[in-house]
Structure formats: structure tokens, C-alpha cells
């Protein structure tokens, strides 16, 4: 399974690297969202700094929608789904590989957005341990959930409009957990944030297991 996962992850990342959609479109878009938040809210830095955690994770979710949609689109063209079905790769491995590729893309975007938040919103970094752990857990949760729901809408004409409707309500707990954990870290009271990390880790494991189990059915059934 892990070998299959590495193969699929490598393929997705290579496609991403060569098409440059993430670097040329998704990344600038996510920074644009940060700028739009500043337009929509008071450009008063104190307000932005106070809301930074929530705005950061909202921007991450928007960027994640695009990344997940991209990841689902890779399998739509040129009969890739049929090829995957016939390849004999373990469906759980395919799921893990796709989720891992999405997670890598998301981590890169989060890093960029993190720099953006520090520069644009004047956030002072604190509680690095909590930020890293919560960020990783939330990323895995978003990538696993997103890959599962991406498979649900893959190949549909309405993929791009249906995906946010299905995915965002499910990701609401991730948004809540990640925002609270970051707020606690930035406020200098990491003890408040660790329970939220537990929630994020639990969600990550839960959706990863659900996705690995369901992916075979989805791959075969459509």
C-alpha cells in the first residue's frame, strides 16, 4: 500500500510541478484573499492582528478547495480513472498518495500564507511548537477529507460548484480547531491550544481511515 501511495503521490506532485498551476495561480490567489480581508475589514492593524488566526485558516480553506479540485481533475482526463482501476494499485494506497500530495501542496501554501500574515497583518509569532503541530494535524485532516470528497465529485460536470458545498460544512470543525489552537499559541497560552490539537489529530485519523476504506468503492463504482 505504501509503495502504491508513494507512486501516486509522486505522480500528482510531478503533474503539479510541471503544470505550475499551484505556483502561478493558487498561491497568488491565496495571497489575494489575505489582501481582500484587509480591504473588507478595517485596515487597522490591531483588528487584523486579533483576527489573524481565523482569517489565515479561512484563506487556507479557500486555497485548499482549489488544490483539492485540481487533485480530483488530474484523474478525470485521458481515462486515468480506468487506468487506476486496471493498474492493480491498492485503492487505499491511491487515496493515501493523493491525500499526501494534497497535503504537500497545502503545506507549501500555508507556509506562504504564514509569511503573508506576518508581513501584512503584523502578527508576532509565538508558541512555535503548537503552531507546527496544529498546522500539520489540520493539514492532514483537510487533505484527507478533501481527497475523499474530491473523489465523490470527480468526473461530474458540476465538480467545481458542488465540492465547496459538500466539503466546507464538513471542514467547519477543522476550521474551528485550527483557529482556536493558533489563537492560543499566538496569545502565549499554548495550554489552551493542545486540546484543539487533539481534536484536529482525531479528525485527521478519522477521515484518513474513512477515505482509505471508501476509496475502493468510489473508484470501482463510477
Amino acid at each position, binding site marked *: 500500500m505504501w509503495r502504491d501511495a508513494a507512486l501516486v503521490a509522486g505522480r500528482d506532485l510531478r503533474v503539479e510541478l510541471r503544470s505550475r498551476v499551484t505556483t502561478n495561480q493558487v498561491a497568488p490567489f491565496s495571497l489575494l484573499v489575505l489582501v481582500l480581508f484587509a480591504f473588507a475589514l478595517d485596515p487597522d492593524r490591531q483588528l487584523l492582528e486579533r483576527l489573524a488566526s481565523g482569517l489565515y485558516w479561512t484563506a487556507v480553506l479557500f486555497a485548499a478547495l482549489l488544490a483539492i479540485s485540481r487533485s480530483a481533475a488530474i484523474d478525470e482526463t485521458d481515462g486515468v480513472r480506468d487506468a487506476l482501476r486496471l493498474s492493480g494499485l491498492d485503492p487505499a494506497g491511491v487515496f493515501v498518495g493523493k491525500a499526501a500530495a494534497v497535503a504537500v501542496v497545502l503545506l507549501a501554501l500555508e507556509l506562504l500564507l504564514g509569511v503573508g500574515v506576518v508581513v501584512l497583518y503584523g502578527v508576532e509569532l509565538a508558541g512555535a511548537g503548537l503552531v507546527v503541530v496544529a498546522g500539520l494535524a489540520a493539514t492532514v485532516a483537510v487533505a484527507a477529507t478533501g481527497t475523499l470528497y474530491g473523489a*465523490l465529485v470527480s468526473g461530474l460536470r*458540476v465538480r467545481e460548484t*458542488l465540492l465547496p*458545498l459538500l466539503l*466546507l460544512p*464538513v471542514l*467547519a470543525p477543522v476550521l474551528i480547531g485550527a483557529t482556536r489552537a493558533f489563537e492560543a499559541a499566538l496569545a502565549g497560552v499554548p495550554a489552551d491550544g493542545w486540546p484543539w490539537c487533539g481534536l484536529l489529530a482525531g479528525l485527521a485519523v478519522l477521515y484518513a481511515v474513512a477515505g482509505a476504506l471508501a476509496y475502493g468503492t*468510489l473508484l470501482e463504482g*463510477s
Partner: protein
Amino acid sequence: MTSPTSTTVTGAPGADGRAADTPRAVAGRGAPGHTGSRASRVLGILALGSIALLVLYGLVWSPADAEMADSVRLMYIHVPAASFMYAGCFITTIASAMWLRRRTPGWDALAGASAEVALVFTAITLGTGSLWGRPTWGTYWTWDARLTSTALLATLLVGYLALRRLDVDPTARSTRAAVLGLLLVPNVIIVNRSVEWWRSLHQRSTLVKLDPTIEGQMLVALMVGFLAIGLVFTWLLVHRFRVAWLEYQSERLDLDLALAERRAEAGHPTDVEAPA
């Protein structure tokens, strides 16, 4: 079992005039041509009767609350509707699991029907809840844990139904809907817990805790509410299920008709035998 296609094919390709025959044609295939039956009519009459009883109990016979005055009467609809909203989600998830096991169209139809009825009751819950909130809390909406998670539940159901409504291959649609339906209850629980946790850190739950010692006529009214709403829920579910079943049958029938027509065009009238 008569084969309705054999008569239709002679009139092909002018199949337009045959559309009206479809329900009867479906009935010929062993399924009811309409959604009513003796049992469901009795159920409907019982539901109407219990609604009348609920109106009497809720509006006339039960006393007004000491604190909430007459607005407490909304409870007799609100609380049962919320309960059956969750019941509908559970039925959807169980039916989805059964579909993934058995792959019989009935389970798929039940999952879809139940989600639709659940969405209706979610709307009733949110509607009566905000009407109740206005006099009690002074606002239609607060970011209370239960309100927020119910709103998210509504979007989960809307998403599920949106996926079901897509015009794609029925088997693929059923598979995807079943996976989504299977995740419905876990998602509802996760969203509910996390939102509860989120709000409890910030502020005390603003929902007035329902008085656990509801007594006398108010308790009777609430029980009548559960009965009436439960009967309405069941009646809606039965009928929605039958509509979904007829839709499934007619989809199959359309395919059979089209196949038979193509075969007739090709000049092999002996092949015109609808697969059972």
C-alpha cells in the same frame, strides 16, 4: 406480467403520446402506479387527526408558561421536529450502509427519501426555533452551539440532496450518494460536538435549558406533538419513498422502451421483448 413495450413499439417513434401511460405501465410491472395505499391513507388520516389534537392541546388546553408565556407553545412542534430531523439522518445513514452491502435500489430510495424529509424537518426546526428565539432571547439568531450545528446540518443535507439530483449514471450516483450518506451521521456528530466545545469556551450556552419538570397538560401536549410529528414524518417518508421507487422504475422503463424502439427500427420485431 404483461409487457407494455410490445404495444408501444408499433407506434414508434411517436413516443410522446405514451408518456401519460407510464404510471400504468409501471404498475403492470408489479409496482404500484400511485403512491397511496390503504395503509398510507389510514396513516394520513391518523396524522391529520393527531395534528388536530395537537392544535387543541398546544393552543387551547395547555397553560401558558410562567416565564415564556405563550411562546412556549412553539415547543410542541419545535422539539419533536428536531428529534425527527435527527431520526431522518440516522435512517439515511443506515439505508446508505445497507445499499453499499446489498446494492438493492430500495435502500437507495429510502436513503434519499429520508434525507429529503429530514431537510424539511430541519427547516421547521430552524424556523420555529428562530421564531421562539425572538421573544425569548430578543433575537432571531444567536451563535449558540445548537443553532449553529443545526444550520450546518442543513447544509450537509442540502449537499447530499444536490449530489443525488445530478443527471449522471444512476449506479455511479447511488454509490457516491451512499458514501456521502454513510458519512452523514458521523459528520453531524463531529460538527455538533466541536461546535458545542467551541461555544462553551467563549460563553455559556444561551439556550434556556428546557425545564426538566414539564408537567401536566404541557407534558401531554409535548407527547401529542411527538405523536403528530412522528405520524407526519412517517407519512411523508412512505410517500417520498414510493415516488423515488416509481422514478427508479420509470427510468428503467424509459431505457427498455428506447431499446425496444431502436430494435424495431432495425427491423427485428421478434427481438422486442422487454427484459423483465
